[in-house]
């Protein structure tokens, strides 16, 4: 045992000694690019320090590939494998070697930063750079064992590093199929939940530690587990490696199929998720692309146009498994498709545009099991901060459930606009649970708009919406408290600032009058207004300038809050008061 240890240490030292030229070259590159060049140019070195970190990634990556390239050449492999030191030990000598080089390079960049007295918080950056580099070194070794040539090993290192992200994409693809098949389900909402509850990608990549979070036990636990897992795989794969496949793209047939199957899912996922169209056409395109991608990858890896029967079998089995899995998620979700809660059971609700709103909401509700009055006020504020309204009024909640049933039956709407926003409905129930749905609206020339517009108009005309959206105008207490800090910025349709001494009290009255009457004379387009940001109809209103009000109300960290109102044609009184034609 002692002898083996000595042997390992001696070989490690020998190997380090033989790398002295690499150390020298890397030192020169780092010092020239991070210290000398900014010094000669006489400029701030932050960009160069950042560039130095990129260089470290490249240098370490190249080093790993060069060191492990002995696995990809028959003569080299036969030479090293015939020596009385195991392949496993040779690989781990390279791993240790590359870690030493990495530490050396990181120290060089840190030195450059210190010499330049740069403001860049390098240690903060190192919190994820170091584990990424370390995991990258291990992954490069694993990829070299799995691959038959060095180019493939390089590509597979990147592939393996991105593997958690690739799985994320495939799961998202499954959810997007689910969302296409079942109205009301959103791939974003499902993914958000899945990532939050199970698939903690930000922890896997340790990105969670980048935002001023201190390194803790969990950090080391995650990093240790990942490295232990890769180490285990290296040991296992070295034992099982088919050295006769040296020179081919892949040393393992199983891994070749694994890569091909995943790649054949990613490519259609990336294409079809960006397309709008019927579910059938999307699925047909996805399957065609999957088959084509799979064929091309296998043909390249096997260096033959005619692929083996086994490859075809693997593809068919994988696709069947994917379809079955997606089908299972559809089956699980189907019973919830027609769920529209009784308005009596709803404490508060949101209806409006989708996108980033639910993220804020979800993050907030996570911390609050049941929304008591105190928490509700905080929760409403969060909504307000994103110019959205959390409806408490029973009449509005009833109208939201009516709209929900209407949209559930038919997502079509006859719009004059080329683009329509999706509709999101979130219910926060009395029992603390949450129901979230996102409906994709369909522009349909034959659709009947009347019912949807009428329900939407009732919500839009409600006092609750106006008072919450334009609280800085409607809330008397608030206005009286902060009116002296109200600052106006008025711009015409060309964006030019309009000067003038405007009486805020008077302007407020005119704005309220216009907002009150906004939906009184017509309900046309109310549905689209409900699905738009700020509950206005910017796309339907001719752009005619806007008013921006800044108030020092201390609602956020900036001290000032900014509210803007698009002065569309329906702001007749305000426009007349301001003298806008």
């Amino acid at each position: 045992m002692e002898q083996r240890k000595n042997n390992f240490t001696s070989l490690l030292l020998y190997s380090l000694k033989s790398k002295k030229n690499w150390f020298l070259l890397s030192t020169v590159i780092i010092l020239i690019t991070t210290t000398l060049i900014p010094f000669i140019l006489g400029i701030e070195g932050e960009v160069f320090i950042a560039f130095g970190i990129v260089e470290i990634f490249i240098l370490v990556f190249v080093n790993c590939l060069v060191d492990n390239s002995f696995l990809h050449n028959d003569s080299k492999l036969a030479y090293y494998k015939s020596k009385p030191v195991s392949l496993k030990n040779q690989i781990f000598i390279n791993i240790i070697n590359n870690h030493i080089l990495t530490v050396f390079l990181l120290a060089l960049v840190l030195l450059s930063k210190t010499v330049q007295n740069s403001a860049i918080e390098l240690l903060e950056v190192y919190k994820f750079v170091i584990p990424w580099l370390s995991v990258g070194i291990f992954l490069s070794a694993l990829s070299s064992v799995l691959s038959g040539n060095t180019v493939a090993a390089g590509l597979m290192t990147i592939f393996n590093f991105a593997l958690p992200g690739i799985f994320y994409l495939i799961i998202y693809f499954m959810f997007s199929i689910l969302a296409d098949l079942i109205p009301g389900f959103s791939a974003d909402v499902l993914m958000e939940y899945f990532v939050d509850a199970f698939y903690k990608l930000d922890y896997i990549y340790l990105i969670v530690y980048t935002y001023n979070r201190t390194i803790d036990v969990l950090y080391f636990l995650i990093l240790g587990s990942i490295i232990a897992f890769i180490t285990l795989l290296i040991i296992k794969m070295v034992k099982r490696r088919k050295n006769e496949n040296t020179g081919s793209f892949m040393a393992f047939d199983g891994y070749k199929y694994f890569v091909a199957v995943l790649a054949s899912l990613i490519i259609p996922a990336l294409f079809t998720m960006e397309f709008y169209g019927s579910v059938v056409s999307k699925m047909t395109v996805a399957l065609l692309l999957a088959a084509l991608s799979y064929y091309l990858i296998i043909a390249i890896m096997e260096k033959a146009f005619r692929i083996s029967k086994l490859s075809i079998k693997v593809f068919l089995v994988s696709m069947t498994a994917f379809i079955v899995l997606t089908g299972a998620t559809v089956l699980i979700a189907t019973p919830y498709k027609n769920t529209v809660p009784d308005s009596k059971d709803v404490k508060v609700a949101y209806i409006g545009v989708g996108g980033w709103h639910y993220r804020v909401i979800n993050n907030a509700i996570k911390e609050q099991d049941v929304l008591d009055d105190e928490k509700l006020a905080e929760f409403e504020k969060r909504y307000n901060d994103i110019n959205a309204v959390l409806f408490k009024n029973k009449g509005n909640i009833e109208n939201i459930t009516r709209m929900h049933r209407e949209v559930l039956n038919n997502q079509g709407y006859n719009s004059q606009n080329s683009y329509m926003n999706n509709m999101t409905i979130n219910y926060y129930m009395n029992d603390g649970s949450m129901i979230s749905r996102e409906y994709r609206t369909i522009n349909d020339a034959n659709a009947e708009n009347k019912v949807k517009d009428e329900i939407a108009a009732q919500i839009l005309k409600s006092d609750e919406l106006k008072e919450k959206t334009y609280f800085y105008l409607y809330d008397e207490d608030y206005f009286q408290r902060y009116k002296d800090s109200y600052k106006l910025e008025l711009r015409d349709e060309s964006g030019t600032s309009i000067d003038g001494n405007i009486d805020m009290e008077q302007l407020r009255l005119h704005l309220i009058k216009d907002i009150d009457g906004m939906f009184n004379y017509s309900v046309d387009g109310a549905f689209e207004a409900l699905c738009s940001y700020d509950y206005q109809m910017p796309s339907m209103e001719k752009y005619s300038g806007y008013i921006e009000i800044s108030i020092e109300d201390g609602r956020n960290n900036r001290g000032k809050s900014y509210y803007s109102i698009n002065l569309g044609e329906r702001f007749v009184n305000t426009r007349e008061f301001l003298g806008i034609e």
Partner: protein
Amino acid sequence: MLKVENLSKKFGEFQVLSNININPESSQLYGLVGSNGCGKTTLLKQIMMIYKQDEGTIYYDDKELKENTEFLSDFYFVQDSLFFPYQSTLSKLFAYEKLLYKNMSTEKFDNLVKYFNIEINKSLNKMSKGQKKQAAFVLAIAAQPKVLLLDEIVDGLDAVIKRKFWDVLIQEVMENEMTVIISSHDLKELDNICDKVGIMHEGKILKEENLEKMKDEIKRVQFAVEGEFNPDGFKEFNIIKSVKIGSINICTLTGNADEFKQQLEKEYKVLLFDKLSMNLEEIFITELGGAGYGTEKK
């Protein structure tokens, strides 16, 4: 002692080695000869555990090598397509291999370097093929392994260097009880030095025997008889090959040559009869001819 039993190996669908059995003995030179692409190099790499066998067992000192890989530290393999680490010189490589082989002898290394007149500080990758082979051979002998596998080691060497190689090798085998397996196409060279020979063809060992015994077993006779010689009446003598050049018949047989002569005299008037000695190359061609190799008509 090294022993390979029922070893088989497939590369994908291609059967490279099939049911290989060889028994190289210590203090002996074992010649592995065979047609091109018959699997000699694969067999040597298999012994070194570079490839994993699909079936069969390799024993060393009656223990399974797969389960006792530490024995491999007593093995040394010199491959045909030589590789030396980047920018290495013989002296650097010796320092590296000294860390690996516990018996690596500095004295032996120095002597061999002098004997072969090799520049130890010259980059190995800048040396000629012959010089590289000498360098690899020097390291192999200096390592003093118990089993030495040499793949086409004398290929491309001049006669003087070859002679030096054999001298060193024979001395090592005798002094250190080394087991040496040499694969080579140069059958004339092996004929002079091998104790035992394994003849390979299409992944199989066609014959394995002591060279002298092999020569005893396969004989060639030439004779002239009155009338036309018909080999059909001599089946008990296992005539492998029979050709007639002018009035002279030449037969290769595995049966007893003296009894063949007696039988011949009974059936024909024998005008001329001679026993011819066979060398390894002729035995090789005969064995492979029996396996249908090299018998194709133009």
